[in-house]
Protein backbone atom coordinates (compact mmCIF):
# COMPACT_ATOMS: atom_id res chain seq x y z
CA UNK A 1 0.00 0.00 0.00
CA UNK A 2 2.42 2.66 1.07
CA UNK A 3 5.72 2.98 -0.69
CA UNK A 4 7.64 4.26 2.26
CA UNK A 5 11.25 5.06 2.89
CA UNK A 6 12.13 2.21 5.15
CA UNK A 7 11.21 -0.45 2.59
CA UNK A 8 14.72 -0.38 1.13
CA UNK A 9 17.18 -2.41 3.24
CA UNK A 10 19.69 -0.29 5.07
CA UNK A 11 23.30 -0.38 3.86
CA UNK A 12 25.59 -2.63 5.95
CA UNK A 13 27.56 0.27 7.37
CA UNK A 14 24.41 1.71 8.88
CA UNK A 15 23.45 -1.63 10.39
CA UNK A 16 26.63 -1.63 12.43
CA UNK A 17 25.68 1.69 13.89
CA UNK A 18 22.17 0.57 14.73
CA UNK A 19 21.74 -0.29 18.36
CA UNK A 20 18.24 -1.53 17.63
CA UNK A 21 16.51 -2.74 14.49
CA UNK A 22 12.88 -3.76 14.44
CA UNK A 23 11.94 -5.49 11.17
CA UNK A 24 8.49 -6.34 9.83
CA UNK A 25 6.97 -6.77 13.25
CA UNK A 26 3.40 -8.07 13.20
CA UNK A 27 1.19 -8.14 16.25
CA UNK A 28 -2.45 -9.16 16.31
CA UNK A 29 -4.88 -9.07 19.21
CA UNK A 30 -7.63 -11.40 18.06
CA UNK A 31 -8.84 -9.95 14.77
CA UNK A 32 -7.28 -6.56 15.43
CA UNK A 33 -3.98 -6.00 13.67
CA UNK A 34 -2.06 -3.62 15.96
CA UNK A 35 1.26 -3.78 14.11
CA UNK A 36 1.33 -4.62 10.43
CA UNK A 37 4.94 -5.06 9.38
CA UNK A 38 6.47 -2.29 11.44
CA UNK A 39 10.11 -1.53 10.66
CA UNK A 40 12.31 1.00 12.38
CA UNK A 41 15.89 1.45 13.48
CA UNK A 42 17.65 3.36 16.20
CA UNK A 43 21.26 4.44 15.99
CA UNK A 44 23.67 4.55 18.86
CA UNK A 45 23.19 7.74 20.85
CA UNK A 46 20.22 8.76 18.77
CA UNK A 47 16.95 10.16 20.06
CA UNK A 48 14.01 9.03 17.94
CA UNK A 49 10.60 10.58 18.27
CA UNK A 50 7.70 8.24 17.62
CA UNK A 51 4.43 9.95 16.80
CA UNK A 52 1.05 8.80 15.62
CA UNK A 53 -2.57 9.04 16.52
CA UNK A 54 -4.16 7.07 19.34
CA UNK A 55 -4.47 3.45 18.29
CA UNK A 56 -1.67 3.66 15.74
CA UNK A 57 0.25 1.00 17.65
CA UNK A 58 2.89 3.09 19.42
CA UNK A 59 2.42 1.55 22.86
CA UNK A 60 2.17 -1.96 21.42
CA UNK A 61 5.48 -1.43 19.65
CA UNK A 62 7.11 -0.17 22.84
CA UNK A 63 5.76 -3.15 24.75
CA UNK A 64 7.19 -5.54 22.19
CA UNK A 65 10.60 -3.87 22.38
CA UNK A 66 10.58 -4.16 26.18
CA UNK A 67 9.58 -7.82 26.10
CA UNK A 68 6.11 -7.31 27.52
CA UNK A 69 4.30 -8.53 24.39
CA UNK A 70 5.65 -11.13 22.00
CA UNK A 71 5.33 -10.33 18.32
CA UNK A 72 3.47 -12.67 15.92
CA UNK A 73 6.08 -12.11 13.26
CA UNK A 74 9.20 -10.17 12.34
CA UNK A 75 12.60 -9.87 13.93
CA UNK A 76 14.33 -7.72 16.49
CA UNK A 77 18.06 -7.06 16.29
CA UNK A 78 19.85 -5.58 19.27
CA UNK A 79 23.43 -4.46 18.64
CA UNK A 80 23.67 -6.63 15.57
CA UNK A 81 22.32 -9.79 17.22
CA UNK A 82 18.94 -11.39 16.57
CA UNK A 83 17.04 -11.60 19.85
CA UNK A 84 13.83 -13.20 21.02
CA UNK A 85 12.41 -10.95 23.70
CA UNK A 86 10.41 -13.19 25.97
CA UNK A 87 10.11 -11.15 29.13
CA UNK A 88 10.70 -7.73 30.61
CA UNK A 89 13.69 -8.87 32.71
CA UNK A 90 15.23 -10.46 29.63
CA UNK A 91 14.88 -7.23 27.66
CA UNK A 92 16.33 -5.36 30.60
CA UNK A 93 19.31 -7.72 30.67
CA UNK A 94 19.95 -6.64 27.07
CA UNK A 95 19.89 -3.02 28.22
CA UNK A 96 16.37 -2.12 27.10
CA UNK A 97 14.12 -0.35 29.56
CA UNK A 98 10.92 1.68 29.61
CA UNK A 99 10.38 4.37 32.19
CA UNK A 100 6.88 4.78 33.49
CA UNK A 101 6.46 7.80 35.67
CA UNK A 102 4.22 6.30 38.32
CA UNK A 103 5.22 2.68 38.20
CA UNK A 104 8.91 2.95 38.76
CA UNK A 105 9.50 4.57 42.13
CA UNK A 106 8.64 3.67 45.71
CA UNK A 107 7.10 6.72 47.38
CA UNK A 108 8.09 5.87 50.92
CA UNK A 109 11.76 5.37 50.11
CA UNK A 110 14.31 8.16 49.83
CA UNK A 111 15.65 9.35 46.48
CA UNK A 112 18.95 7.52 46.93
CA UNK A 113 17.31 4.25 48.00
CA UNK A 114 15.15 4.45 44.90
CA UNK A 115 18.21 5.12 42.74
CA UNK A 116 19.84 1.95 44.09
CA UNK A 117 16.74 -0.22 44.52
CA UNK A 118 17.60 -3.84 43.80
CA UNK A 119 21.28 -2.91 43.45
CA UNK A 120 22.07 -1.61 46.93
CA UNK A 121 25.71 -1.19 47.82
CA UNK A 122 26.82 -3.01 50.95
CA UNK A 123 29.50 -2.22 53.48
CA UNK A 124 32.39 -4.61 53.00
CA UNK A 125 32.02 -7.69 55.17
CA UNK A 126 28.73 -6.56 56.69
CA UNK A 127 25.05 -7.19 56.04
CA UNK A 128 24.43 -3.45 56.33
CA UNK A 129 23.94 -1.27 53.29
CA UNK A 130 26.40 1.50 52.55
CA UNK A 131 23.96 4.37 52.87
CA UNK A 132 26.64 7.02 52.91
CA UNK A 133 28.31 6.01 49.66
CA UNK A 134 24.94 5.40 47.95
CA UNK A 135 23.86 8.89 49.03
CA UNK A 136 27.08 10.40 47.81
CA UNK A 137 26.95 8.67 44.42
CA UNK A 138 23.27 9.46 43.91
CA UNK A 139 23.86 13.08 44.85
CA UNK A 140 26.82 13.43 42.52
CA UNK A 141 25.07 11.71 39.64
CA UNK A 142 21.90 13.77 39.96
CA UNK A 143 24.02 16.91 40.21
CA UNK A 144 25.84 15.91 37.02
CA UNK A 145 22.51 15.42 35.33
CA UNK A 146 21.29 18.68 36.85
CA UNK A 147 18.27 16.92 38.32
CA UNK A 148 17.11 19.30 40.98
CA UNK A 149 16.13 17.75 44.33
CA UNK A 150 16.45 19.35 47.76
CA UNK A 151 18.29 16.36 49.13
CA UNK A 152 18.72 12.73 48.17
CA UNK A 153 17.33 11.91 51.64
CA UNK A 154 13.87 13.19 50.74
CA UNK A 155 11.20 10.57 50.26
CA UNK A 156 10.20 10.34 46.62
CA UNK A 157 6.51 10.68 47.52
CA UNK A 158 7.17 14.27 48.54
CA UNK A 159 8.55 15.25 45.14
CA UNK A 160 6.76 16.71 42.14
CA UNK A 161 5.85 14.70 39.06
CA UNK A 162 8.71 16.24 37.09
CA UNK A 163 11.28 15.43 39.73
CA UNK A 164 9.99 11.87 40.01
CA UNK A 165 10.15 11.38 36.26
CA UNK A 166 13.66 12.81 36.18
CA UNK A 167 14.77 10.46 38.94
CA UNK A 168 13.18 7.48 37.21
CA UNK A 169 15.02 8.32 33.98
CA UNK A 170 18.28 9.02 35.79
CA UNK A 171 18.00 5.70 37.60
CA UNK A 172 17.48 3.78 34.38
CA UNK A 173 20.49 5.44 32.76
CA UNK A 174 22.59 5.01 35.90
CA UNK A 175 21.98 1.27 35.79
CA UNK A 176 23.61 1.05 32.36
CA UNK A 177 20.57 1.05 30.14
CA UNK A 178 21.46 1.22 26.45
CA UNK A 179 18.03 1.72 24.94
CA UNK A 180 15.63 3.88 26.87
CA UNK A 181 11.98 4.02 25.90
CA UNK A 182 9.93 6.94 27.18
CA UNK A 183 6.18 6.68 26.75
CA UNK A 184 4.69 10.16 27.08
CA UNK A 185 7.38 11.39 29.45
CA UNK A 186 5.80 14.83 29.64
CA UNK A 187 2.18 13.84 30.17
CA UNK A 188 0.36 15.85 32.82
CA UNK A 189 3.31 18.12 33.42
CA UNK A 190 3.51 21.87 33.72
CA UNK A 191 5.78 23.90 31.46
CA UNK A 192 8.53 24.21 34.06
CA UNK A 193 8.48 20.51 34.85
CA UNK A 194 8.47 19.57 31.17
CA UNK A 195 11.49 21.78 30.63
CA UNK A 196 13.36 19.93 33.38
CA UNK A 197 12.75 16.62 31.65
CA UNK A 198 13.62 17.97 28.20
CA UNK A 199 16.85 19.39 29.61
CA UNK A 200 17.65 16.01 31.12
CA UNK A 201 17.00 14.24 27.82
CA UNK A 202 19.23 16.76 26.05
CA UNK A 203 22.00 16.20 28.58
CA UNK A 204 21.76 12.42 28.14
CA UNK A 205 21.90 12.95 24.40
CA UNK A 206 25.13 14.93 24.69
CA UNK A 207 26.71 12.04 26.56
CA UNK A 208 25.84 9.58 23.79
CA UNK A 209 25.70 6.72 26.29
CA UNK A 210 22.07 5.90 25.75
CA UNK A 211 19.77 5.77 22.73
CA UNK A 212 16.16 6.78 23.20
CA UNK A 213 12.74 6.38 21.66
CA UNK A 214 10.29 8.98 22.86
CA UNK A 215 6.56 8.70 22.31
CA UNK A 216 4.81 12.02 22.52
CA UNK A 217 1.81 13.91 21.30
CA UNK A 218 3.56 17.22 21.77
CA UNK A 219 5.34 17.67 18.45
CA UNK A 220 7.06 20.88 19.45
CA UNK A 221 8.89 18.96 22.16
CA UNK A 222 9.75 16.17 19.72
CA UNK A 223 11.23 18.72 17.34
CA UNK A 224 13.09 20.19 20.27
CA UNK A 225 14.97 17.12 21.53
CA UNK A 226 14.85 14.44 18.86
CA UNK A 227 17.25 13.72 16.03
CA UNK A 228 14.68 11.98 13.87
CA UNK A 229 10.93 11.48 13.77
CA UNK A 230 8.94 8.40 12.74
CA UNK A 231 5.21 8.42 12.21
CA UNK A 232 3.29 5.26 12.93
CA UNK A 233 -0.05 4.87 11.20
CA UNK A 234 -2.22 1.77 11.39
CA UNK A 235 0.68 -0.36 12.50
CA UNK A 236 3.21 0.83 9.89
CA UNK A 237 5.93 3.45 9.84
CA UNK A 238 4.84 5.78 7.04
CA UNK A 239 7.20 8.66 7.60
CA UNK A 240 10.83 8.88 8.65
CA UNK A 241 12.78 12.14 8.58
CA UNK A 242 15.51 13.93 10.45
CA UNK A 243 14.08 16.84 12.43
CA UNK A 244 16.04 19.41 10.42
CA UNK A 245 14.33 18.11 7.26
CA UNK A 246 10.84 18.53 8.60
CA UNK A 247 8.81 21.10 10.48
CA UNK A 248 6.19 21.36 13.16
CA UNK A 249 3.64 22.22 10.46
CA UNK A 250 4.48 19.14 8.45
CA UNK A 251 4.17 16.82 11.45
CA UNK A 252 0.86 18.34 12.47
CA UNK A 253 -0.39 18.17 8.90
CA UNK A 254 0.65 14.51 8.65
CA UNK A 255 -1.30 13.38 11.64
CA UNK A 256 -4.32 15.50 10.84
CA UNK A 257 -4.38 14.42 7.18
CA UNK A 258 -5.61 11.02 8.26
CA UNK A 259 -9.02 12.56 8.93
CA UNK A 260 -9.23 14.07 5.49
CA UNK A 261 -9.58 10.84 3.61
CA UNK A 262 -6.28 9.37 4.71
CA UNK A 263 -4.19 10.35 1.68
CA UNK A 264 -0.62 9.21 1.85
CA UNK A 265 1.77 11.67 3.43
CA UNK A 266 4.32 13.32 1.20
CA UNK A 267 7.95 12.34 1.05
Amino acid at each position, binding site marked *: MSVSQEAAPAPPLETDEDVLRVENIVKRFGSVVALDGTTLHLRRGEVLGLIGDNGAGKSTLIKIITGFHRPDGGRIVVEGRDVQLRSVPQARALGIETVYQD*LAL*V*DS*LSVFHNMFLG*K*ELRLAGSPLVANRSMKERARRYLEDMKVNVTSVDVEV*GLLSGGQRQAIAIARAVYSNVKILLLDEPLAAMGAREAKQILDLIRRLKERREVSMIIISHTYAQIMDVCDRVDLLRRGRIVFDKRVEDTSLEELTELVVSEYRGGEEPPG
Partner: protein
Amino acid sequence: MAEHVSTDRVAGPSALVRRLRTAGWFIARNREASTIVVAILLALYFYSTAPGFATSSNLVNISQEIARIGIVACGLALVLICAEIDLSVGQTFAFAPIIMWLAMSHGVPLIPAIVIGLAATAVVGFVNGFVTVYLRVHSFLTTLGMYFLINGLNVTITNGFPKDTPGPNIVTNGMGGSSYSEFIWLVALVVLLHLVLRRTRWGIHTLATGGNLTGAREAGVRTDVVKIGNFMACATLAGLTGILEAFRVGSIDPLAGSATVMFLGVSAAVIGGTSLLGGVGTMIGAFFGAGILTLLDNGFTLKGISAFTFDIILGIAILIAVALNVYIARFRTMRKPQ
Protein backbone atom coordinates in the same frame (compact mmCIF):
# COMPACT_ATOMS: atom_id res chain seq x y z
CA MET B 1 17.98 10.74 59.13
CA ALA B 2 16.59 14.24 59.41
CA GLU B 3 19.68 16.29 58.72
CA HIS B 4 17.83 18.44 56.27
CA VAL B 5 14.97 19.70 58.40
CA SER B 6 13.61 22.52 56.30
CA THR B 7 14.97 25.89 57.26
CA ASP B 8 12.90 28.58 55.69
CA ARG B 9 15.06 31.11 53.94
CA VAL B 10 12.16 33.49 53.50
CA ALA B 11 12.69 36.51 55.76
CA GLY B 12 9.01 36.80 56.64
CA PRO B 13 7.94 34.78 59.71
CA SER B 14 9.32 35.44 63.16
CA ALA B 15 11.86 33.17 64.81
CA LEU B 16 9.19 31.56 66.99
CA VAL B 17 6.93 30.73 64.09
CA ARG B 18 9.86 29.33 62.20
CA ARG B 19 10.93 27.21 65.14
CA LEU B 20 7.38 25.90 65.61
CA ARG B 21 7.19 25.14 61.93
CA THR B 22 10.49 23.30 62.07
CA ALA B 23 9.25 21.29 65.06
CA GLY B 24 6.02 20.48 63.25
CA TRP B 25 7.96 19.44 60.19
CA PHE B 26 10.24 17.28 62.31
CA ILE B 27 7.27 15.49 63.88
CA ALA B 28 5.69 15.05 60.49
CA ARG B 29 8.88 13.72 58.96
CA ASN B 30 9.59 11.28 61.75
CA ARG B 31 6.58 9.08 61.99
CA GLU B 32 7.57 7.82 65.43
CA ALA B 33 7.90 11.27 66.93
CA SER B 34 4.21 11.92 67.58
CA THR B 35 3.82 8.47 69.15
CA ILE B 36 6.76 9.11 71.45
CA VAL B 37 5.34 12.48 72.50
CA VAL B 38 1.95 10.93 73.33
CA ALA B 39 3.58 8.06 75.26
CA ILE B 40 5.61 10.52 77.35
CA LEU B 41 2.57 12.70 78.04
CA LEU B 42 0.56 9.65 79.14
CA ALA B 43 3.37 8.49 81.43
CA LEU B 44 3.58 11.95 83.01
CA TYR B 45 -0.19 12.10 83.45
CA PHE B 46 -0.43 8.75 85.21
CA TYR B 47 2.71 9.45 87.20
CA SER B 48 1.08 12.50 88.72
CA THR B 49 -2.49 11.20 89.07
CA ALA B 50 -2.49 7.41 89.46
CA PRO B 51 -1.58 6.06 92.91
CA GLY B 52 1.15 3.44 92.86
CA PHE B 53 2.08 4.10 89.23
CA ALA B 54 5.79 4.58 89.82
CA THR B 55 6.26 1.73 92.30
CA SER B 56 8.85 -0.83 91.33
CA SER B 57 6.33 -3.67 91.15
CA ASN B 58 4.12 -1.66 88.80
CA LEU B 59 7.06 -0.77 86.59
CA VAL B 60 7.76 -4.48 86.25
CA ASN B 61 4.12 -5.01 85.27
CA ILE B 62 4.35 -2.25 82.69
CA SER B 63 7.62 -3.58 81.25
CA GLN B 64 6.14 -7.06 80.86
CA GLU B 65 2.97 -5.86 79.19
CA ILE B 66 4.87 -3.59 76.79
CA ALA B 67 7.03 -6.55 75.84
CA ARG B 68 4.05 -8.83 75.30
CA ILE B 69 2.35 -6.36 72.99
CA GLY B 70 5.53 -4.87 71.51
CA ILE B 71 7.30 -7.97 70.21
CA VAL B 72 4.13 -9.17 68.49
CA ALA B 73 3.65 -5.63 67.12
CA CYS B 74 7.15 -5.55 65.63
CA GLY B 75 6.49 -8.79 63.80
CA LEU B 76 3.13 -7.56 62.59
CA ALA B 77 4.69 -4.28 61.47
CA LEU B 78 6.99 -6.25 59.14
CA VAL B 79 4.00 -7.99 57.57
CA LEU B 80 1.91 -4.81 57.45
CA ILE B 81 4.78 -2.95 55.72
CA CYS B 82 4.57 -5.64 53.02
CA ALA B 83 0.88 -4.66 52.66
CA GLU B 84 -0.23 -7.97 54.16
CA ILE B 85 -1.66 -8.93 57.55
CA ASP B 86 -1.26 -11.88 59.92
CA LEU B 87 -4.33 -12.60 62.04
CA SER B 88 -2.95 -15.95 63.17
CA VAL B 89 -0.34 -14.45 65.54
CA GLY B 90 -2.97 -14.70 68.28
CA GLN B 91 -2.63 -18.49 68.08
CA THR B 92 1.00 -18.96 67.00
CA PHE B 93 1.67 -17.11 70.26
CA ALA B 94 0.27 -20.10 72.18
CA PHE B 95 1.55 -22.67 69.66
CA ALA B 96 5.31 -22.22 70.27
CA PRO B 97 5.32 -23.11 74.00
CA ILE B 98 3.01 -26.05 73.32
CA ILE B 99 5.36 -27.49 70.68
CA MET B 100 8.23 -26.83 73.08
CA TRP B 101 6.37 -28.79 75.76
CA LEU B 102 5.60 -31.56 73.26
CA ALA B 103 9.30 -31.86 72.36
CA MET B 104 10.30 -31.94 76.02
CA SER B 105 7.75 -34.60 76.81
CA HIS B 106 9.57 -36.70 74.20
CA GLY B 107 12.85 -36.24 76.02
CA VAL B 108 14.26 -33.23 74.15
CA PRO B 109 16.30 -30.94 76.46
CA LEU B 110 15.05 -27.41 77.17
CA ILE B 111 17.12 -25.30 74.78
CA PRO B 112 16.63 -27.50 71.68
CA ALA B 113 12.96 -27.72 72.64
CA ILE B 114 12.71 -23.92 72.59
CA VAL B 115 14.35 -23.90 69.15
CA ILE B 116 11.89 -26.56 67.93
CA GLY B 117 8.98 -24.46 69.25
CA LEU B 118 10.24 -21.41 67.37
CA ALA B 119 10.95 -23.44 64.24
CA ALA B 120 7.36 -24.72 64.31
CA THR B 121 6.08 -21.13 64.29
CA ALA B 122 8.44 -20.31 61.44
CA VAL B 123 6.81 -23.14 59.48
CA VAL B 124 3.40 -21.65 60.26
CA GLY B 125 4.67 -18.32 58.94
CA PHE B 126 6.02 -20.01 55.82
CA VAL B 127 2.66 -21.63 55.10
CA ASN B 128 0.93 -18.26 55.63
CA GLY B 129 3.33 -16.64 53.18
CA PHE B 130 3.31 -19.45 50.65
CA VAL B 131 -0.48 -19.67 50.44
CA THR B 132 -0.77 -15.89 50.24
CA VAL B 133 1.92 -15.38 47.61
CA TYR B 134 1.64 -18.45 45.41
CA LEU B 135 -2.00 -19.43 45.75
CA ARG B 136 -2.94 -15.75 45.66
CA VAL B 137 -5.26 -15.92 48.63
CA HIS B 138 -5.56 -12.61 50.46
CA SER B 139 -3.50 -12.81 53.65
CA PHE B 140 -6.55 -11.78 55.68
CA LEU B 141 -8.20 -15.07 54.68
CA THR B 142 -5.05 -17.21 54.75
CA THR B 143 -4.23 -16.20 58.29
CA LEU B 144 -7.86 -16.27 59.42
CA GLY B 145 -7.93 -19.92 58.45
CA MET B 146 -4.56 -20.43 60.11
CA TYR B 147 -5.90 -18.81 63.29
CA PHE B 148 -8.56 -21.49 63.70
CA LEU B 149 -6.27 -24.29 62.54
CA ILE B 150 -3.61 -23.48 65.12
CA ASN B 151 -6.23 -22.93 67.80
CA GLY B 152 -7.48 -26.45 67.12
CA LEU B 153 -3.94 -27.87 67.20
CA ASN B 154 -3.20 -26.13 70.49
CA VAL B 155 -6.23 -27.65 72.19
CA THR B 156 -5.76 -31.08 70.57
CA ILE B 157 -2.08 -31.45 71.47
CA THR B 158 -2.64 -30.50 75.10
CA ASN B 159 -6.03 -32.15 75.42
CA GLY B 160 -7.19 -28.74 76.56
CA PHE B 161 -5.24 -28.80 79.82
CA PRO B 162 -2.50 -26.35 80.85
CA LYS B 163 0.99 -27.78 81.29
CA ASP B 164 3.70 -26.78 83.75
CA THR B 165 6.88 -25.18 82.45
CA PRO B 166 10.20 -26.64 83.62
CA GLY B 167 11.25 -25.25 87.00
CA PRO B 168 13.13 -21.95 87.22
CA ASN B 169 16.68 -22.11 85.92
CA ILE B 170 19.05 -19.80 84.14
CA VAL B 171 17.44 -20.42 80.74
CA THR B 172 13.83 -19.93 81.81
CA ASN B 173 14.85 -16.86 83.82
CA GLY B 174 16.46 -15.36 80.76
CA MET B 175 13.44 -16.31 78.65
CA GLY B 176 10.82 -14.37 80.55
CA GLY B 177 11.13 -15.87 84.04
CA SER B 178 12.92 -12.96 85.70
CA SER B 179 11.32 -9.54 86.09
CA TYR B 180 12.85 -7.51 83.28
CA SER B 181 14.00 -10.27 80.94
CA GLU B 182 11.00 -9.86 78.62
CA PHE B 183 11.63 -6.14 78.37
CA ILE B 184 15.30 -6.73 77.58
CA TRP B 185 14.24 -9.08 74.78
CA LEU B 186 11.90 -6.39 73.47
CA VAL B 187 14.53 -3.65 73.47
CA ALA B 188 17.12 -5.91 71.84
CA LEU B 189 14.64 -6.97 69.16
CA VAL B 190 13.49 -3.42 68.46
CA VAL B 191 17.09 -2.29 67.99
CA LEU B 192 17.90 -5.30 65.82
CA LEU B 193 14.76 -5.04 63.68
CA HIS B 194 15.16 -1.28 63.33
CA LEU B 195 18.61 -1.90 61.89
CA VAL B 196 17.27 -4.63 59.64
CA LEU B 197 14.50 -2.39 58.34
CA ARG B 198 16.59 0.73 57.78
CA ARG B 199 20.08 -0.52 57.10
CA THR B 200 19.84 -3.82 55.23
CA ARG B 201 18.78 -4.79 51.75
CA TRP B 202 16.11 -6.97 53.31
CA GLY B 203 14.57 -3.98 55.08
CA ILE B 204 14.71 -1.69 52.05
CA HIS B 205 13.20 -4.44 49.91
CA THR B 206 10.46 -4.94 52.51
CA LEU B 207 9.54 -1.25 52.36
CA ALA B 208 9.70 -1.34 48.55
CA THR B 209 7.53 -4.47 48.30
CA GLY B 210 4.74 -2.87 50.30
CA GLY B 211 5.21 0.59 48.82
CA ASN B 212 5.14 -0.38 45.15
CA LEU B 213 4.89 -4.09 44.41
CA THR B 214 5.18 -3.79 40.62
CA GLY B 215 7.91 -1.20 40.78
CA ALA B 216 9.92 -3.21 43.29
CA ARG B 217 9.60 -6.36 41.20
CA GLU B 218 10.63 -4.44 38.09
CA ALA B 219 13.70 -3.18 39.93
CA GLY B 220 14.70 -6.77 40.65
CA VAL B 221 13.40 -7.13 44.21
CA ARG B 222 12.29 -10.71 44.91
CA THR B 223 9.00 -9.61 46.38
CA ASP B 224 7.69 -13.17 46.89
CA VAL B 225 10.70 -14.12 48.98
CA VAL B 226 10.46 -10.87 50.91
CA LYS B 227 6.80 -11.46 51.76
CA ILE B 228 7.26 -15.08 52.82
CA GLY B 229 10.31 -14.18 54.90
CA ASN B 230 8.42 -11.49 56.75
CA PHE B 231 5.47 -13.80 57.42
CA MET B 232 8.02 -16.21 58.93
CA ALA B 233 9.64 -13.49 61.02
CA CYS B 234 6.23 -12.33 62.25
CA ALA B 235 5.09 -15.82 63.28
CA THR B 236 8.42 -16.57 64.96
CA LEU B 237 8.30 -13.33 66.95
CA ALA B 238 4.76 -14.17 68.10
CA GLY B 239 5.98 -17.64 69.09
CA LEU B 240 8.92 -16.18 70.99
CA THR B 241 6.54 -13.89 72.88
CA GLY B 242 4.40 -16.92 73.75
CA ILE B 243 7.42 -18.76 75.14
CA LEU B 244 8.53 -15.72 77.16
CA GLU B 245 5.01 -15.40 78.59
CA ALA B 246 4.81 -19.11 79.40
CA PHE B 247 8.02 -18.94 81.46
CA ARG B 248 6.86 -15.76 83.17
CA VAL B 249 3.55 -17.29 84.21
CA GLY B 250 5.06 -20.74 84.81
CA SER B 251 2.37 -22.46 82.81
CA ILE B 252 1.66 -23.38 79.21
CA ASP B 253 -1.96 -22.57 78.54
CA PRO B 254 -3.58 -23.89 75.32
CA LEU B 255 -6.02 -21.00 75.61
CA ALA B 256 -3.32 -18.34 76.09
CA GLY B 257 -3.73 -17.23 72.50
CA SER B 258 -6.58 -15.00 71.50
CA ALA B 259 -7.65 -12.46 68.95
CA THR B 260 -6.84 -9.81 71.57
CA VAL B 261 -3.11 -10.63 71.28
CA MET B 262 -3.37 -9.92 67.56
CA PHE B 263 -5.59 -6.85 67.84
CA LEU B 264 -3.31 -5.23 70.41
CA GLY B 265 -0.32 -5.96 68.19
CA VAL B 266 -1.95 -4.45 65.12
CA SER B 267 -3.13 -1.45 67.16
CA ALA B 268 0.36 -0.85 68.55
CA ALA B 269 1.93 -1.05 65.10
CA VAL B 270 -0.65 1.28 63.57
CA ILE B 271 -0.53 3.78 66.45
CA GLY B 272 3.23 3.74 65.93
CA GLY B 273 2.83 4.91 62.35
CA THR B 274 2.74 1.67 60.38
CA SER B 275 0.32 1.89 57.47
CA LEU B 276 -2.18 -0.87 56.78
CA LEU B 277 -1.69 -0.05 53.10
CA GLY B 278 1.96 -1.06 53.21
CA GLY B 279 5.25 0.60 52.44
CA VAL B 280 5.37 2.57 55.66
CA GLY B 281 6.24 1.57 59.22
CA THR B 282 8.81 1.66 61.97
CA MET B 283 9.92 -0.60 64.80
CA ILE B 284 10.46 2.26 67.23
CA GLY B 285 6.90 3.34 66.51
CA ALA B 286 5.63 -0.17 67.25
CA PHE B 287 7.52 -0.07 70.56
CA PHE B 288 5.97 3.23 71.63
CA GLY B 289 2.59 2.17 70.28
CA ALA B 290 2.78 -0.80 72.62
CA GLY B 291 3.82 1.66 75.32
CA ILE B 292 0.72 3.80 74.79
CA LEU B 293 -1.64 0.81 74.94
CA THR B 294 0.09 -0.49 78.08
CA LEU B 295 0.05 2.90 79.81
CA LEU B 296 -3.65 3.36 79.08
CA ASP B 297 -4.44 -0.10 80.43
CA ASN B 298 -2.18 0.13 83.46
CA GLY B 299 -2.92 3.75 84.37
CA PHE B 300 -6.69 3.54 84.13
CA THR B 301 -6.69 0.28 86.09
CA LEU B 302 -4.71 1.95 88.88
CA LYS B 303 -7.11 4.88 88.83
CA GLY B 304 -9.90 2.41 89.51
CA ILE B 305 -11.76 2.82 86.26
CA SER B 306 -13.91 -0.22 85.59
CA ALA B 307 -12.98 -2.67 82.87
CA PHE B 308 -16.13 -1.74 80.94
CA THR B 309 -15.29 1.95 80.87
CA PHE B 310 -11.69 1.11 80.10
CA ASP B 311 -12.56 -0.58 76.83
CA ILE B 312 -14.52 2.50 75.79
CA ILE B 313 -11.53 4.71 76.54
CA LEU B 314 -9.14 2.34 74.82
CA GLY B 315 -11.34 2.22 71.74
CA ILE B 316 -11.55 6.00 71.55
CA ALA B 317 -7.81 6.31 72.11
CA ILE B 318 -7.05 3.92 69.25
CA LEU B 319 -9.45 5.75 66.93
CA ILE B 320 -7.85 9.10 67.76
CA ALA B 321 -4.34 7.76 67.33
CA VAL B 322 -5.11 6.16 63.99
CA ALA B 323 -6.97 9.23 62.71
CA LEU B 324 -4.01 11.38 63.75
CA ASN B 325 -1.71 9.12 61.82
CA VAL B 326 -3.76 9.46 58.68
CA TYR B 327 -3.89 13.21 59.14
CA ILE B 328 -0.14 13.44 59.64
CA ALA B 329 0.47 11.30 56.58
CA ARG B 330 -1.69 13.68 54.55
CA PHE B 331 0.11 16.68 56.01
CA ARG B 332 3.40 15.13 54.95
CA THR B 333 2.45 14.71 51.34
CA MET B 334 0.84 18.14 51.13
CA ARG B 335 3.96 19.84 52.28
CA LYS B 336 6.40 19.50 49.46
CA PRO B 337 9.82 20.89 50.24
CA GLN B 338 11.29 22.82 47.35
